[in-house]
Every structure is written in C-alpha cells, then in structure tokens.
C-alpha cells in the first residue's frame, strides 16, 4: 500500500501523509487499548465470586408467632420476616391502591398472606426502619417507622407517608417447606 502511494505522489507529501496515518493509527490503537485495560480495574470492585455465591439465607419460621417479627441477614442486609395477624392482613388488603405513592396490591407482595418478607432498608436513604419489636414505634399504619427522616410503611411494607419514594423491596424467596423459607 505504501509502495503504491509512493509511486503516485511526490515523496515529501507522501512522508507527511504516511506520518499522519501512523500517528492516527497508533493513537487510536493506544487509546482503545488503554480504555480496555481500565476494565479489569473497575470490574475488580464489583462483587467477587465468593460474595455472589453467598446469596441465599435459610430461615426457620416455626418459632415466630402471629404478630411477631424477626430480622435475618441476607447478603449483609436486614430482611424483615413478619408473621401477620388476621387484622394486619385485612388492613393491608383493604387499601385503595389509588391512595398509594407506589401502588402495589398486597397479594403481589406476599406468597403466603401470613408471611410478609421485605428488605428492611428504607427506600429513602438506606436506614433500617423501626417496628420489628413490639415496643418500637410502627407509625400510623402499623407497619414500620423510619427514624431517620420519618417515612412510614404499612403492614404490607408499602410507603404511606414521609419522603421515601418506594415500598420496602420484596426479595426473591421460596418456601422450602411449611416452616422454612430460603431467601435469595
């Protein structure tokens, strides 16, 4: 290719073209390569293989009585497991969805109406809401109350008042038996 060009043009101009071409080619290759080389560094900050492998938690439900709740650790975060009373289930199901900031029927947030399982992290800025212990404030809707900025959740873990934008998240889970559940 260079030879053909050489025959066609005077040599000074050819040198200039050749130099420009080489400069652009080398710069392009160098910049692309440097960009690709950054990826391993960035990716090293993503969760490692062992972290990803620890993504399930088994919970024994047999000791939790209606009205009680426990907090379990799943991927380093608290998960609220609440055994709801009949009244709590009824009030969660009776809500008119149009009143909700993040409209979701109770039925799609639970697999078994008795058990509400939600990630215990306020969707505002990540605090853990109060309401797991009987002595905790639970807010006007009897669910959870976040002490950081006053968000209030109902008995289905849905946002009802305060600055949080979303309902408490429902993690993936499945019942492995009548009294055990695997989260994740």
């Amino acid at each position, binding site marked *: 290719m260079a030879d053909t060009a050489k025959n066609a043009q005077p040599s000074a101009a050819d040198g200039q073209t050749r130099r420009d071409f080489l400069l652009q080619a080398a710069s392009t290759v160098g910049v692309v390569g440097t960009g690709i080389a950054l990826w391993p560094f960035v990716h090293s900050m993503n969760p*490692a293989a062992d972290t990803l492998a620890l993504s399930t938690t088994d919970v024994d439900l047999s000791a939790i009585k209606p009205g009680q709740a426990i907090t379990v650790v799943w991927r380093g975060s608290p998960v609220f497991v609440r055994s709801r009373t009949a009244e709590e289930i009824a009030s969660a199901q009776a809500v008119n969805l149009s009143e909700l900031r993040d409209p979701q029927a109770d039925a799609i947030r639970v697999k078994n109406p008795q058990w509400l399982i939600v990630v215990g992290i306020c969707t505002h800025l990540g605090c853990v809401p109060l309401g797991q212990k009987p002595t905790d404030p639970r807010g006007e809707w009897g669910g959870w109350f976040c002490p950081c900025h006053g968000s209030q959740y109902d008995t289905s873990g849905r946002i009802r008042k305060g600055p949080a934008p979303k309902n408490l998240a429902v993690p993936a889970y499945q019942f492995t038996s009548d009294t055990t559940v695997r989260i994740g």
Partner: protein
Amino acid sequence: MSGFKSNNTVVNWVEDRLPVFSMLRHSAIEYPTPKNLNYWWNFGSLAAVTLVIMIVTGLFLAMSYTPHSALAFDSVERIMRDVNYGWLLRYLHSNGASMFFILVYIHIFRGLYYGSYKAPRELLWFIGIAIYLAMMATGFLGYVLPWGQMSFWGATVITNLFSAFPLIGDSIVTLLWGGFSVDNPTLNRFFALHFLLPFVIVGLVALHVWALHSVKSNNPLGIDMNGPQDAIPFHPYYTIKDLFGIGVFLMVYMAFVFWAPNFFGEADNYIPANPMLTPPHIVPEWYYLPFYAILRAFTVDLWFIPAKLLGVVAMFGAILILFALPWLDSSKVRSATFRPLYRQFFWLFVLNAFVLGYCGAKPTTDLLVTVSQVATAYYFAHFLIVLPWLSRKEKTLALPASISAPVVKAIAIGAMLLIGATGFSGTAQANTATHELLKPEGGFSWTGVFGRYDRASLKRGWQVYHEVCANCHGLKLVAFRNLAAVGLTPEEIKAIAAEKEVQDGPNDEGAMFQRPARPSDRMLSPYANDKVAASIHGGAVPPDLSLITKARVNGPNYVYSLLLGYPDVLPEDAAIPEGKMYNTYFPGYAIGMPQQVFEDAVSYADGTKATKEQIAKDVVTFLNWAAEPELEARKSLGVKVMVFLALLTALLFALKRQIWKDVH
C-alpha cells in the same frame, strides 16, 4: 514562561492565573534534549511508567487485601480466586516490582557507564539514590504482606539487621515489630508504610526530573551540548521514542505476567507463615541478593567489632558509598566511551555485582563465603581504590568537538534484560532430593503458551482426590461451587457438598450446630484442627492441598514423583524411623504418608485404565487446577494482550522512524 499565547481563551484564562501550559510546553515539549541519546536513555521513563502501574495496581489490590496476620494469606488467595481479575492485578503488581528493579538497575548502570553522576549532576544522582533506597524499603515491606513463609522469615531477618547496632539495636527491633516477634502489629504497620512510600517515591521522582531539567540530560558522549544544533525538542522526538520503548517493555513484562507469573517468586511463599518453623533455605527477593551476599561475607570479628555488625554496616555502606561517587571519581571525562580503562573496570564491576548476586542466592558453603568475601572486597575497592586511581592515571581518548559529529554504537537492549531476568530467579531451592523428578508420559496438558487443562483428566483427578486424598487432606481454598470448572453439574455439586457436614450457628438458642455443606462452602480438612490431625498421624499434619503444586519447587512434577516414589525394595542404607515411610523424592526420605497410589486404587467412571501413573497424573492435574484455577483465563487473555501490544509497538516503531528520519 512569558510570551505564551494560545488561540483558546480558556487556556489563556488558566495560563494567566496558573502557568501550567507554559510549564508543560517548557518542560515536556520544548525541553532541549541531546539528539544522540541511545536506547539506554529509555529506562528512566520506563521506570516512571512502572511506578504508575505499581501504584494503580496496588491501590486496587489494597481494596481487597486484609492486613491481619490471621487473614492476610487467605485474602491474597481470595484476590487470586474470587475477585474479578484479581489474579491479573496481583501478578501485574508482583512482577511489576521485579520489572521496576530491573529497569532501575539498568538506569543506574547506565549512569555509571556514562558518568551521569558527575558535575553538574551530583544532586540529580543523590535524589536517584534516595529513590532507590525508598524502592528497596517499599519492595521489602510489600513482600511481607502476603504473609507466606518467605514473607514472615524475610521480615524477621531484615528487621533483625538492626539488632546488630550496639546498645540501641534491640530496642529498635522491638519498636519495628511492635511486639516481641514479627506479628500482627508488624504486618499492620508494614501495610501502612507500604501504602505511603510509593507516594514519597513520586515526590522524589518529581525532584529528580526537576533537577534533570535544570542541568539537562547527559548523553552517550558525555560532553555538553554546545548549542541548538546539538539539541532537539523532547516532543515529538523523545516522546515517540519513549512510547516505542514502553511498547517493547510491556511485551516483556506481560510475558512474565501471563506465562511465568511466579518466575521471580519463591515457592515457599505459597505456604502460610509459620512462626515456629523456618524454611530450610531462605533468601530475600532477587533485587537484594548482592547486598545479602555482602552481609553474609563477614564471618569473623574484627578486634572488638562483632562480625554481625560489620556485615550490616558493609551492606548499608555498599549503597551509601554511591553518595561519594562524584568525588571518588574525579576524572573530567564523563562517558566510558572515552575512558578505555574505566570501561573495562566498569564491566568488571557489573560482573562482580552478578557474582555477589549469585552468592546471595545460594546456601552458604565455604567456597561461596570465600567468593563472597573476595567479591565484597572488590566491590569496595572499585569505589575506594580503582576509581580514584583511574581518575589520576587514565589516559582518556580525545573528546569529539560536538555531539553532532560522531556515531555511537548502540548495544542490544534486550541482552541486559535477559541476564537480569535469568540471573537470580527461582533461587530458594531447598535442595530437596538428589533424585531427578519423574515426569508423566506426554507431559502435563496445561504447560506451554496455549496449554489448557485436559477436562477428562481433571474430572478423573477430582475422583481420585475425592475418594482417596480427601480422607486426610483438605482443600480449604476451593469451594464446592468451583467444581463446576471441573465439569460437574450444579446437581452433582450440591450432592457432593451435602455429603460433608460443616459447623454453623449460633442458632436461636445460641448453640453451634452441624448442617450439610452448601456449594458456597469450602472443602475443609476432615480434621477439626491441626492438633487432632497431628495426634492421629503420629505428629505429622497432612498439609492442605489447595496450593501444593505452587508451594513446592517444580510442584507438579514433585507431587507426581512423590506419589510414585515408594520403591518396592528399600535402599540398604535407608534408616526410616518407626511409623514413617521411605519416599525417594521426599526431603529426608522419611514421609508420614503411606503409599496411596496403587494399580486400580480407584475405578474410573469414564472407564480409563487406572494405572499408577495415570492416577498420579490425573490427581496432579486436578491439584494444579486447585492451585491455579485462573490458568486458562490467564493464558487466553495473555495471547490477546500480546497480539495487541505487537500491533501497537509496530505502529509506534514505524511512527518513530518517520519522525526521526530527518535527524539521522
């Protein structure tokens, strides 16, 4: 700096308030550089590039490393196995350290050859020595962090150097340790200092470059630039030449990272630190070996001065004497090109440094101690006798009138790299057995540039480990989930994991309990702890096998030989204690493990005939996978990186020729 004007108003606005652009133009673009610099002048910029690579890789490694004596070793192995591209970061960092020293040694010897330390460059030289000292400290501190056997005993030996000083020595050592031996406080502070020092080096490098730009570069002729006809602007001439050099250097560097990542390391450092047991032969990292030889050369007290103190003083003195060099060598001629005698003594000095390095690498023998003593004497004689004498007596050749005139012959750049790389590597061989190791027929499938694990052999090897080895040996760095790479399905992995019980808890009553293992659990030793294992096995603990092929010199062949090394007829002079077995390849011949590999010891699921050799080869394949699960990803990424670097370097070379064609 005045008179800078750009067409860009933003540039001008910044320039008026902080003259960065004129400074950049002054020192990185227009900076007048001798036009005759050869490739030996590339090594300064190469070292700077390596420093940046070391800081960046080190920063990201630090994000996954745990500086605690109980956790450090496993956290490094987690980086190797679980952190995304962690193996790449770690091998870039560990090999980068060796590359950094190779480059800096060449840079220093270049300075010695061409007299770059002479007036007016004395301060430039001093700052360079300070950088070198800071590098040595950083390298030592970093080598301690993986907390393997060499880390621990290297730290012990080097810190004990300070105990040689009379009166205050022991207090200094206790202060360095933060305790009564090298332990967790030591590791903590070494990590803190290892993080700090590279930034000190960056500061020193800035001073080094500043000093360089004040006095201008030396050159192969060692004469000053007479005027503009001798100089060319740094950019584009030396920027492109440096970039081309970087391309070549990266190819050498990456060849080690991807295909021989443990070439500069020691097998013993894949054994976790054990304060109760010193390895049979310990050595520092290769870049300290000449000084280590000087330290060991002093074996006799001199009057009231103990040999120990003499060795330490000589070792530090060997570096500090470089500060006096500008005055010890008072010859007015800088470059060895015009000093025929100095040139010969220079190469003798280089050779002597290699001899010292060799002596430092080997276990002490009477002969080597004598050689070390002679070489140490010559090292100091070079500075204290030869150079002052040469300065007065040598008849130097006539210097050329100007740089523009003569032609300087360049020496092949790779030669020294090669010597440096091969000279001191793989040094700490415990000299295990005199018998040559056995090799499997056809060799192991994973060696070579494109080598991969033979899947069928890997799966058979897992079967051997599972049915035979696992009865006594753990594989604690490998999780059941990792067996997917061996070719097991998720269901098989779940079933295999569930065969084992692991402790979990506490449960709601606060008690610990046993539960079946899950795929995320690791393959722990069958024994609750080492004491139990030792009591069952007559005092010998069956080692964990996760890293066994990396933790022994020539590991795969060693383990293969060991498994087959039980002779039917014992040698007549074999004196084996009660409860031990004779093994041809085990250091000392007396091994706790009875022969395990027999014809048909396993019944292979795939129908392969289970000969002894087949079983040994398969299980070594599996164990090497356990030790280097990243091997296939490493080699395949390496091929891509090399193809890319070859293309880039070729382009840079062509561009360099274009840019330089009018100068030559």
